[in-house]
């Protein structure tokens, strides 16, 4: 295994042109290597690449760690960051790495979906911004081309003031999400719902959003309907972690509770 440590984004991108695998915190990739699932010949080590660690307002460098997001991020993203693995994992793992892995259960994804974030991909030809829903294309599949590097996450300039994150897992810490969700609500009532672990990619719940956004002061009946629509809109599976039925139920309940938190 050959590892290069580029000193600039340009060098990193040049390294990728040989089919090398980018390595950020290594908290996903090295697990795959240890399991023997992947055996990369060439690796581009990104951890010492200072430009990726820059965080400028709404632009979060791909190399920013979960630990830092836990401390400095917007409320719901910080709450999500707190649930990423253990403190050791959060010190190493990055938001860019989370996106590169693109697990359906990625803890950071529901927030990016809820606020309509974009992902900055950079290649030798320059940078492009890809909307979150075009970036995630399937289970652990993204729109990133092999010669592109995830360089940043671009959030909207204005974030909804009310936002809440929640994650259902069987254990009370250090657990893969059975369901995770972010709900945001703006002053004008506009509500968004980002959901993880309930479809091949992170998703939104547009019918539920539309319904509840028009309710200026949601009643209990509105909240119940919102919960029902979220449960209906998710597309979960049954696997060794949970059942389709429970994930549907959990997604609806969790989204309703997060909305209630936003409305308080």
């Amino acid at each position, binding site marked *: 295994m050959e590892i290069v440590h580029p000193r600039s984004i340009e060098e990193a991108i040049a390294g990728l042109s040989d089919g090398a695998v980018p390595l950020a915190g290594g908290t996903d990739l090295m697990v795959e290597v*240890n*399991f*023997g699932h992947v055996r990369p010949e060439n690796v581009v080590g990104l951890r010492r690449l200072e430009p990726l660690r820059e965080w400028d307002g709404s632009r979060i460098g791909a190399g920013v760690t979960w630990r830092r997001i836990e401390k400095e991020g917007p409320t719901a993203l910080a*709450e999500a960051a*707190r*649930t990423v693995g253990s403190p050791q994992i959060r010190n190493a793992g990055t938001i860019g790495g989370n996106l590169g892995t693109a697990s359906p259960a990625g803890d950071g994804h529901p927030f990016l979906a809820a606020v309509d974030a974009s992902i900055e991909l950079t290649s030798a030809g320059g940078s492009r911004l890809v909307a979150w829903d075009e970036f995630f294309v399937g289970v652990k599949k993204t729109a990133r081309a092999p010669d592109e590097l995830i360089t940043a996450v671009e959030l909207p300039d204005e974030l909804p003031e009310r936002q*809440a*994150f*929640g*994650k*259902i*897992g*069987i*254990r*009370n*810490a*250090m*657990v*893969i*999400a*059975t369901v*995770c969700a972010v709900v945001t609500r703006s002053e004008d009532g506009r509500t968004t719902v980002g959901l993880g672990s309930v479809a091949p990619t992170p998703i939104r719940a547009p019918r539920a959003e539309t319904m509840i956004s028009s309710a200026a002061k949601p009643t209990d009946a509105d909240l119940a309907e919102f919960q029902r629509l979220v449960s209906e809109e998710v597309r979960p599976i049954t*696997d*060794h*972690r*949970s*059942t389709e*039925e*429970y994930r549907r*139920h*959990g997604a609806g*309940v*969790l989204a309703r*509770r997060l909305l209630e938190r936003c409305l308080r």
Partner: protein
Amino acid sequence: MSTRTGRKVGTPQGVVGTSPLRPDGIPKLQGRFEYAQDLAAEGMLWAATVRSPHARARIASIDIAPALAIGGVHACLTADDVPGRATFGLEHPDQPVLAAQEARFWGEPVAVVAAEDLDTARRAAAAIEVGYEPLEALTDPEEANRRDEVFRRMRIRRGDQSVRGAVVVEGEYEVGMQDQAPLGTEAGLAVPDGQGGVDLYATSQYVHVDQEQVVASLGLRPDQVRSHPTGIGGAFGAREDVNLHIHLCMLALHTGRPVKMVYRRSESFTGHVHRHPAWLRYRHEADRDGRLVRVEASVVLDGGAYASTTSAVLANACYFAVGPYTCDSVAVDGVGVRTNNPPCGAMRGFGAVQVCFGYESQMDRLAHALEMDPLTLREINALETGHPLATTGQVIQTPLPTVEVIKSLQAMPLPEAGPSDLPTELPGGSGLTSEPQHVTRGVGYALGIKNLGFSEGSDDYAQARVRITDSGAVVETAAIEVGQGLVTVLAQIARSALGISHVEVAHVDTSKIDSAGSTSASRQTQVSGGATLEAAQRLRERILGQFDGDVLDDEGVWRGDTLVTPWTALAAGDWEETVTFRHPPTTMTDDNGQGVAHADFAVAGHRAVVDVDVELGLVKVLRVDTAQDVGLALNPQSVRGQIEGGILQGVGLAVMEELVMGEGVILNPTFTDYLLPTILDAPEVEALLIEQEGSWGPYGAKGVGEPPTISSTAAVAAAIRAASGREIERVPVRPQDIALP
């Protein structure tokens, strides 16, 4: 000769009843302790194992040529290369060292390789081409029972079978497959001695039984194989069976080089046996005053593909199927079935855990039907010294403070505060799912009983040797320290018996001492401790007799105020004593399951307090308090350590720890998905140690390792039931079982 001046007599340090620092404690905390994973030898090769990817398959062909073609590969061995007995097993040698014509479970070893480094060994293992022809796997235990694919059937009938009670409750219960999940995976090093023999250093709970099995399968003389105790990172039953031991010795003798193997985490989950999943059916009948008049139970355990200890686990499950209660009309039918699921065997609690969930769920149901307090019902029926065990009829001879356990639990104050304001202290923890208004509190109780030591006529013995050294004394033993603190307690016993402060414990190999038996069945403190006590007492008596002394202490032998033999003179002599200790004999039971099957018993009770988010089915176990029958706490801190750890393992089985199976395949063989409780899942524990004289263990000590695990699961399940109103007929309790019953 010196004379004593104002010196207090007989006050050695670190004796029984105190909690001295464990000698391995600081090295373990500092990372300096040598575990089996850390072993190394000059010129060492690394080994890897080829495992079946099918729950059942015919092995049509094995082509090792592609592996041997890789540079640095020294050996690829298959079933054809096993020089001696082709199979191994603790009770029946039915498990192939390497699968020959047929692989019978997912992950079964088919070939082993040795190479210059670990990476090459793993690549070579992947390069071996095995021609599998998948066969239909038998994974349904009921179907296995119908086809009479069984390791053992148990039938217990005691008392008048026609008795009927006024109040009847029935239930069906299920226990998922728990794993011991020791943090140290299987690891070992085999070193050829250059004369056809081999020294084995490997994770184990029982080096003598490993040695016997290596001897048989390698076709060697017993003196050619020496199995050495080594550093073990947890066991809980997972290390009773052979796994990599024979493979390592085969590879070492084949290559003439030391060979090391360390299982990966995912391999560890297939490389050792698990706790038997269980299916239980119960019918309890009582009179209107709450006296149990009839208990019927059916116990099905899935033993998986090979025998391991299924027969003994099944027997235990059946013998303790009624729990610590008296009843004079009992019928228990049990079966341990053979399937193509992973082999199951020993795990802390050894069959008593599974049935406890069943009988304690039933006792709560009965209390509900009788409109009676659940602890009162238990007290009415409590099994105590002098009573016959409801199943076997064996009269309990040693202290069994069941009523005191119950009264102690009753007296423990409940937490006054409601659900926490801290989100991480609520169900869902750091996931921030739940707020106080979503949470209901529940309290549940359970009692459990288990035998201590081996049963059913096993010749259960342990040998220990106490030898005088320059600095004091050493206890030599082949008993295994797995983290439980044996190394501390044996020294304490010897200090108390000799009257000196400086005693160390030395783990010696199988050629230097006879067996100590297994570090299991809560037995080593009683059995190896018993041997140590007797050896130390005899040694002291011989020394005092030789020098006509009346006191032995750190300075030497005293007669009155005169030091007649200073320690240096004692150390120059050849003072040692070797003792083989046996506990009271037991017998195999008769066709009705009647007889004196057990040497001793222990009882414990647990009270769990949980907060449940019923809508989401999430649980926070706040407290599990306990009262436990310990005989005498030789080392109170170690006893509390066993209690807290055992409770946590019980909490794990109650709410998260399960190997999830899909057609014979373990779907979650990683710590990502096999969830162990974290500190946010760990309850507060208050433990009351109930001490009573009269057990045959040293100073009246009883084994304490297993009781904390037996009823803690059932107590948590009962508390969840109380909080949620759900029936809770299965553990682990999953969110959907609560939220979507």
